[in-house]
């Protein structure tokens, strides 16, 4: 840690000020929110940032708001515990609360932020596949202005995202799930409940009014490669199809075929691949069940 002196530590109070700091120390500054991922990387000597810009004091990055049509907007510096415990989220989008509650330990959820989790871009993140299935949009801001991108374009590689050196992730927008849809997220942690996922699967399923056909499907997978991915072939195989077991089995098989996970200390690539099949199937069943429940309630 002492290899090079820290040249500056800043605590901007506004997003604009934070953006200015990133511009003026371009390439040498790191954003720090809860600090979980960043401090681990510093401890592991993977990075050694000269300038730190703490965004934990920026109030406009810490909020949860909901609009009936647009859905949720969540400030990037909102901690997991707040998302987990938010009564608004529990009511309107329980899946998000559940996923936030699955992340690490209490201590991690008390410090870790939604934005930090996404920007760290660990392929085994729980939030990223869930938010991909939920079609989240990310708002990125810099001194030059703001842009919004769909979350599935955000992750590029292991710990690499599309965020620019001068950009800050400020907001996560998650559209409200329509009444005829349901979403699910399952993570597989065969060793310990405290593990990062060995495989995770998130499914969004929208059904028709008769609950006979799948109108729209999104399937996202975590921990199966360098970044969270959508199982596009599996989605294609399900879209417009009748809701029958064989269709889901077939989609799960396609998802299994289209990914090539790696081996690590937790599991072999081959096993992970098998598990993709199992968990896509399970997540799809769960999403459909929820869609039917939602439909039932809507009627």
């Amino acid at each position, binding site marked *: *840690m*002492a290899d090079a*002196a*820290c*040249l*500056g*530590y800043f605590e901007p109070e506004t997003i604009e000020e934070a953006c200015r700091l990133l511009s003026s120390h371009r390439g040498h500054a790191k954003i*720090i929110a809860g*600090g*979980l991922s960043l*401090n*681990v990387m*510093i*401890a*592991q000597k993977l990075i050694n*940032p000269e300038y*730190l810009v*703490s965004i*934990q004091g920026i109030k406009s990055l810490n909020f949860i708001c909901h609009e009936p049509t647009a859905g949720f907007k969540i400030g990037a510096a909102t901690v997991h*515990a707040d998302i987990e415990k938010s009564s608004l989220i529990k009511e309107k989008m329980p899946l998000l609360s559940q996923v936030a509650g699955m992340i*690490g*330990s*209490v*201590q*991690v959820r*008390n*410090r870790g932020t939604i934005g930090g989790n996404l920007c760290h871009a660990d392929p085994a993140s729980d939030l990223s596949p869930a938010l991909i299935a939920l079609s989240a949009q990310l708002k990125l801001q810099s001194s030059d202005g703001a842009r919004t991108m769909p979350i599935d374009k955000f992750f590029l590689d292991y710990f690499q995202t599309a965020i620019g050196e001068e950009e800050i992730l400020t907001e996560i927008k998650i559209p409200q799930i329509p009444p005829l849809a349901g979403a699910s997220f399952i993570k597989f942690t065969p060793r310990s*409940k*405290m593990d990062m996922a060995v495989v995770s699967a998130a499914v969004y399923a929208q059904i028709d009014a008769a609950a006979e056909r799948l109108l729209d499907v999104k399937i996202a997978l975590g921990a199966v490669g360098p970044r969270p991915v959508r199982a596009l072939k599996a989605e294609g195989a399900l879209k417009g199809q009748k809701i029958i077991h064989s269709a889901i089995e077939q989609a799960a098989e396609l998802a299994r075929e289209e990914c090539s996970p790696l081996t690590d200390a937790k599991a072999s690539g081959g096993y992970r691949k098998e598990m993709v099949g199992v968990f896509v199937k399970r997540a799809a069943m769960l999403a459909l069940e929820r869609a039917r429940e939602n439909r039932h309630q809507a009627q």
Partner: protein
Amino acid sequence: MREKIELKVNGDLYQVEVDPRKTLLSVLREDLELTGAKMSCGYGVCGSCTVLVDGKAVCSCLVLATQAKGKEIVTIEGLSDGDGLHPLQESFIDHGAIQCGYCTPGMILSAKALLDENPSPDEYEIRSAIAGNLCRCTGYVKIVEAIKAASAKMVRSWQISPSSAAGRRKSTQD
């Protein structure tokens, strides 16, 4: 660069000059000589370094000291009011929930954060609340029993004397 920061720990104000990348754990242990919080993994996985920041359990090995400015920090040293042990501390001793003791400060603080928020947790809630505190000695059975017993005792004492309970709760938050 070194930064002058002021930390409020267990109600006392401390001024220290630190590298902004220095963790709260290092400052507590090295600068303030509050060695109750322990280093064990350094990656926020084992919970030995757990302290309370504004009432929330956090791993102090992954919090920069400078980010804890202006917040209420409670370490195990600040848990008892000086007259006696905190009911959780007493309960840990009575139930054999301590073997080597290395995880104990963090474990007790996680339990305190839980009971402050949820005074009568069930077993699953207790186990979830301390899941981020690894213990290699006890297998957690006696720890869970100790937290249950402390919870019952604390709830009882509030029922008997609500005013002093309010006082105690307030003082720990101040």
